[in-house]
């Protein structure tokens, strides 16, 4: 599950309408390894395909904020629930956070990242291009499906 966050819905041919809070929310198993990504992506190790998957994995896992963790550690008393926290702390619209949080399963975490801070060019491209986004969604869904199968 991955959902793109676009704060400013307007579009213009003449100037950028992007916002510094534009980014994405993603659901992944808490203990998700690079090997899980590689298996889900169905690529051979030590190939260009695996290098691409490695960059994708590290940019998603290393540079994103684990918002479940942050909420439970520091904001649990301040906000009644996670979507309120996401709205007031990161300006993430309820329409997006509710859609994502409804998909959250036991053993999974929600990661948040913005394109303006720490998100790599690889992750940015995979989220922005429709073909690449479909691929990324399939990989993430397969990682989640496999995790659920193995934890039964």
């Amino acid at each position, binding site marked *: 599950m991955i959902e793109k966050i676009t704060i400013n819905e307007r579009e213009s041919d003449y100037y950028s309408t992007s916002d510094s809070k534009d980014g994405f929310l993603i659901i992944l198993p808490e203990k998700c390894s690079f090997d899980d990504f590689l298996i889900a*992506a*169905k*690529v*051979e190790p030590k190939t260009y395909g695996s290098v691409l998957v490695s960059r994708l994995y590290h940019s998603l896992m290393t540079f994103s904020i684990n918002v479940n963790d942050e909420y439970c550690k520091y904001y649990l008393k301040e906000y009644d629930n996670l979507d309120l926290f996401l709205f007031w702390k990161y300006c993430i619209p309820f329409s997006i956070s509710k859609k994502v949080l409804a998909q959250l399963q036991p053993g999974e975490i929600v990661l948040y990242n913005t394109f303006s801070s720490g998100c790599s060019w*690889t992750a940015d491209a995979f989220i922005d*291009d429709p073909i690449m986004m*479909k691929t990324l969604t399939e990989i993430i869904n397969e990682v989640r499906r496999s995790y659920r199968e193995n934890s039964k």
Partner: protein
Amino acid sequence: MKIRSDFVTNSSSTSFVIVSKGEFTKELFFKLVGLQENSPLIPVFEKLFFLFKEKMAVLDNSNLFADNVELKRIIDESLKTGKMVSHGKLSSEDDRLESFFCTDSFEMKNDVLYINGVECYW
């Protein structure tokens, strides 16, 4: 301090070289990239393959790459041994997928195929 108030363009192009024993096919390309059957990455590399096919032209000498000693050597040796050598350019002006591979730097090789997309100019 100078402030520029009009458009600032920032385009780039990557020059790529493809050396193959025989025809450059999708199957050979997928094998080189390391894609297994039903890989979710297939649509991404399928589009890259067609971009290569659309933009590549046959190369019969290495003069274009005189500055790059190693690549020039590879091209010269490949031409001598009868391999097919092609080159072309990806652009950052078109869609996002092409822009991504245009600005990426990659070199892949196996027994039948060699692809060099190392040189990237912003």
